[in-house]
């Protein structure tokens, strides 16, 4: 969508968020002089040099490997607030599984910390370095490991190195006529290894599954050797699946180096569709019914009114005739059908597969939608709905220029609680904003969509944003807001996360989620595989094992 003028966007910022053009505050230029100097481990550096393609201590590189895409991290970056933070001391780029094995051995030998990094799109604080860590922290940048070893047309599998970035993977598979079908919002930047390490989910999971449904075999290098299965089979009954320890381990147990994924032939036909519902509640009922009847288009999502209006603001400039036809359509919806423009919700769908199946699915969806009072709203709206999700991160940067802080978060919840959860969480955000004294007359922005349907429930995705330009403590307020929102999610029967993971920002909720004994089990595995705490990012369970403080004192 680059290069397309979006004339309505600024107006939306002004109308809905009360943005003031006069309050433009661009990011401060990066000030590298304040970046803390690296903690050197000369022996490790000497020994590791042959095993990496690139090794650097450059301040900017180190800084870029010390953060993900949390609102908090971006805010700190824009305001040069990293001078008192711990960041990686060294960045290395291995180029093969063998390199990684050697590097991990050396890390064990010289007692340095390894934090694996893929695309760096984490929104859980997983790339933040623990403050108390005194050993050398090495960021293991995997992006040089981006080869596709083989594609197997017979069994429909591909063996791929974990550092490959999503869009490269898709582009290269496409050339061969295949796709993984995994399409997270971060597709442009995130890596295969990152998907596995965080239990990622893509938009088209209905057709292709989530990452855990796609992997056939994983190689992970740990401090005690490589974990891998000796066969690549569809299913195996050999005790608990070791893949389950790797999926969602968030870099705490080892480095994922290679993955065998299922692939599919490119779909014969792809079609977009959209439906307008008189209100969000009806839309949810419709989504539930679609799941009940198991008519799963590749993707089907429901946007609430606030997000719908946001989507409209992103539309490119239109000619006279287009505007006229838009007006006619609007008249039809609001006047003839009696829909309240302040209440309508938009459902977007993607259909993929053989043409006849796509057509059947589309007509099924339209039939059910009619029962819930929906009107079809055309292909273009459907497509735009998907564009929106890719553009959010860019738009947040734009918003930050005007003093806004914004973030997204997600959860999964049983069907019977979807609508209450969304209503309550939005209400809580508004309430906390009021209590925290966020500027009067500037309503906090809160919107939600239902993005994934399952048999027993759904995944809900929230955006929230607020004007922080005149707050003395924007990050504190932001953190209070995020915690309250998450607590409300949990109180409403939602999960701590659907696909963003735990990292550090949600670690406080882990024990409550999986019980004390459950957390003990995770800690036991960590102790067993990594007693020295080489993979010391402190994600998931918090820091387990030594951080070097003791040793340095001795």
């Amino acid at each position, binding site marked *: 969508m680059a290069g397309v003028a979006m004339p309505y966007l600024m107006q939306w910022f002004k109308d809905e968020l009360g943005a003031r053009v006069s309050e433009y505050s661009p990011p401060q230029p990066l000030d590298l002089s304040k970046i803390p100097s690296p903690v050197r481990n000369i022996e490790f550096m000497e020994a590791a040099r042959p095993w990496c393609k690139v090794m650097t201590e450059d301040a900017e590189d180190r800084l870029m490997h010390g953060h993900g895409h949390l609102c908090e991290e971006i805010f700190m970056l824009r305001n040069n607030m990293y001078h008192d933070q711990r960041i990686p001391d060294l960045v290395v780029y291995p180029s093969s599984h063998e390199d990684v094995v050697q590097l991990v051995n050396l890390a064990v030998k010289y007692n340095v910390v390894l934090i694996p990094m893929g695309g760096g799109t984490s929104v859980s604080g997983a790339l933040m370095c623990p403050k108390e860590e005194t050993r050398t922290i090495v960021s293991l940048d995997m992006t040089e490991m981006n080869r596709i070893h083989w594609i197997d047309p017979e069994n429909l599998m591909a063996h791929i190195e974990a550092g490959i970035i999503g869009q490269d993977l898709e582009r290269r598979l496409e050339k061969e006529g295949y796709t993984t079908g995994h399409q997270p919002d971060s597709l442009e930047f995130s890596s295969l290894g990152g998907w596995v390490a965080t239990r990622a989910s893509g938009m088209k999971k209905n057709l292709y599954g989530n990452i855990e449904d796609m992997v056939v075999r994983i190689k992970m290098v740990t401090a005690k050797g490589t974990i891998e299965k000796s066969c690549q089979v569809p299913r195996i009954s050999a005790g608990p699946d070791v893949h389950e320890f790797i999926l969602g381990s968030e870099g705490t147990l080892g480095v994922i180096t290679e993955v065998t994924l299922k692939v599919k032939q490119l779909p014969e036909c792809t079609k977009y569709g959209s439906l307008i519902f008189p209100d969000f509640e009806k839309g949810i009922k419709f989504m539930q019914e679609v799941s009940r009847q198991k008519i799963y288009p590749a993707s089907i999502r429901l946007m609430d009114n606030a997000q719908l209006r946001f989507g409209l603001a992103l539309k490119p400039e239109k000619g006279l005739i287009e505007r006229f036809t838009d007006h006619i359509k609007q008249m039809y919806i609001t006047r003839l059908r009696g829909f309240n423009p302040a209440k309508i919700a938009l459902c977007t769908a993607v259909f993929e597969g053989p043409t006849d199946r796509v057509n059947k699915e589309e007509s099924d969806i339209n039939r059910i939608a009619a029962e819930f009072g929906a009107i079809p709203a055309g292909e273009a709206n459907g497509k735009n709905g998907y564009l929106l999700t890719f553009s959010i991160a860019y738009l947040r940067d734009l918003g930050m220029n005007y003093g806004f802080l914004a973030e997204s978060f997600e959860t999964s919840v*049983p069907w*019977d*609680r979807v609508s*209450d*959860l969304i*209503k*309550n*969480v939005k*209400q*809580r955000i*508004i*309430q906390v904003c009021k209590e925290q004294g966020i500027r009067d007359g500037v309503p906090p922005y809160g919107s939600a969509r239902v993005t994934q349907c399952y048999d027993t429930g759904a995944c809900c995705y929230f955006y929230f944003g607020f004007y922080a330009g005149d707050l003395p403590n924007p990050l504190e307020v932001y953190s209070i807001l995020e915690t309250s929102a998450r607590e*409300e999610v*949990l*109180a*409403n*029967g939602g999960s701590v996360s659907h696909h963003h993971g735990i990292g550090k920002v949600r670690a406080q909720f882990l024990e*409550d989620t999986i019980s004390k004994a459950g957390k003990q089990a995770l800690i036991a595995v960590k102790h067993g595989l990594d007693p020295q705490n080489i993979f010391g990012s402190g994600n998931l369970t918090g820091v387990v094992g030594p951080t070097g403080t003791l040793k340095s004192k001795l």
Partner: protein
Amino acid sequence: KAVVSTQSTGEEEESEEKEEEDSVENLLFHGHRSDLKWCMKDYRPPKYTYVRYRIPCAIREEVLQSNRVRRVISMLCKQTGRSQEQLDTEASAILEEMGHEFSMTILRCIGGLIRKIFKQIITEVTVHKEGIKELRRLSSQKPLLLIPTHRSYLDFILVTWLLYSYDIKTPVIAAGQDFMFMKGVGALLRRCGAYFIRRSFGKDKLYWALFTEYTQTHIINGDAPVEFFIEGTRSRTGKSLQPKFGMLTIALEPFFDARVSDVAICPITLSYEKTVEENLHVRELMGIPKPKESTTGLIKARAILDNNYGRIHVKAGKILSVYDMAVGKVDRKVRALVPRAVIPSVHPHERSFVNELAYKVLIEQQANAVVFPCSALAAVLLAHIKNKCWSVDICKAESELMWVCDLLIKLGCNLIWDKKQHSQIDHVVHMLAPVVSSDGGRVYVHKSPPTTDHLSSSVFRQCNSLISLGRRRNEFMHIVIHIAIIAKILFHPKSRDRTLNQYSRLRDILQYEFIFMPDSFQSDFDRNVQKLIELKLVSFSNNVYKFIDMKVKDFLVSLIDPFLVTYMDSWQFCISYMPRTLQHSQSLKSLCTRIQTYVSVLYCEPYLYGESINLNVIENSILVLAKLSLVSIDKGKSQVYCIDPFNFSNMIREFALTIRPITAKL
């Protein structure tokens, strides 16, 4: 310089006074002067953000189709063998009987009429504006629960009237069924938003489900604020009744169940200078049953229109956010594991939260109460009657009244004089009529003619007036109760530990009589002792408390003695005559009546406290025995017997020591 500074303080005082005047408003003349125009005024209350507009019969239909009701009906089908159609019909009929038929037109008409009547019988209705504004602001954001104090039938009317005046959505009101049977009146109340609940429906599961769902649907959808009385019924005694938890639990379940993100609770305090039902309530307290509510009764009661009931003050208190208060106390996740389709049960931690909240609401209500000088005069007159003087010189009465009022104000009481009256004392005496009157020289308390049979006539003649004055005095008891207990204990100086210990003991004993926040005796004690020390009423040295102001001490003791003596008498009767086995047990009501008779015989001449034959106080004295596990009372209150006579007699002995000066006199 000195002159300038005094001037400026003078100005400040003036502006403060003005501010105070600005902060209250007279509801009688709010908005249009003409009642007709007022009825037809522009009324656009803010709507709750998530409300779906529903007409009353649609609400009933949704209740009928709700998960809860469907489940209960299918369960009853299996259990009782009745067909689903039968149960559906029964459920519809119950809903028909229960539901409101809210109609704005009718509400406007009745509102106008009532305003006209009020202008005749009420001097003014003052409203504290700040609280109401906050209420209006929140009404669009959160579902609201309105919990007013309940002293009079007028409470219903006043709250709805208040909300209508200030452009807030008028509430639906959970009311007792007593009114429903009044021809015409029941129907009118329904149209003003009242819905009716049977007084007792014990184990009727269908009724329970329908009533729960009907209440909750209004909270979840936010059609209107839900109003109910935490005291359950009108307090006849002038002080707050112990809270009832059932309705509050039902109202908070949508929050526990995460159907709504928060519920705002607004305690509303309505303070009456004189309640319309005063006489009836006094008779009830003596044991004369209340007449059944009926339309003819209402028409006969039109005599009330000839009287003046003085002033009414309304204050919407600090609005409590259930979410804020539940932090760390209620874990909503626990309920999230029960699907919506299954009827959830109330968890123990939710129960104790509701319990605590109910007391908070009551204490907030009390804190916002206004006291009128006539309550103080009642206390003054009671003290004189204690010395067998049924009439007092008017100047003496006035100076004593002023002294009591000053004391109460010092203790933090919001006491308001009627600035418009020429002669304060005349007005105050008039507010105690017909029990009290004055002829310009003296103030007389009248003994009324006897009408009952089970009490000896001379006793009865006194106690009608005594109970009546006692009721009025009770209106400020919540302010002095803690320090009155302390004054009682400090009849001679005591160490801190002993004072605290006896304070907590007496507080336990009086727990049914007054509202005490559970589990906070230590902080209540510290706060009140601190206040006494600051006011130089009590001294503290060498770890010993000493009450130094004897006049105040005697006054405070005279306030609490009637209750303590009544408890003592009642218990002394119980230890000798209360049945000790289940077979011989008797009902609470008949036991109380026996105690009443016993006491009236005991004291026929010398002196009697009104409380001693006040059935409410007597009943409380027995209920507390059950709380202390000395007596067993079953749920229906029909089988009462003593289970632990040994500890009971020990306790009486100990209690007698605590209140020694009195027992010495006896």
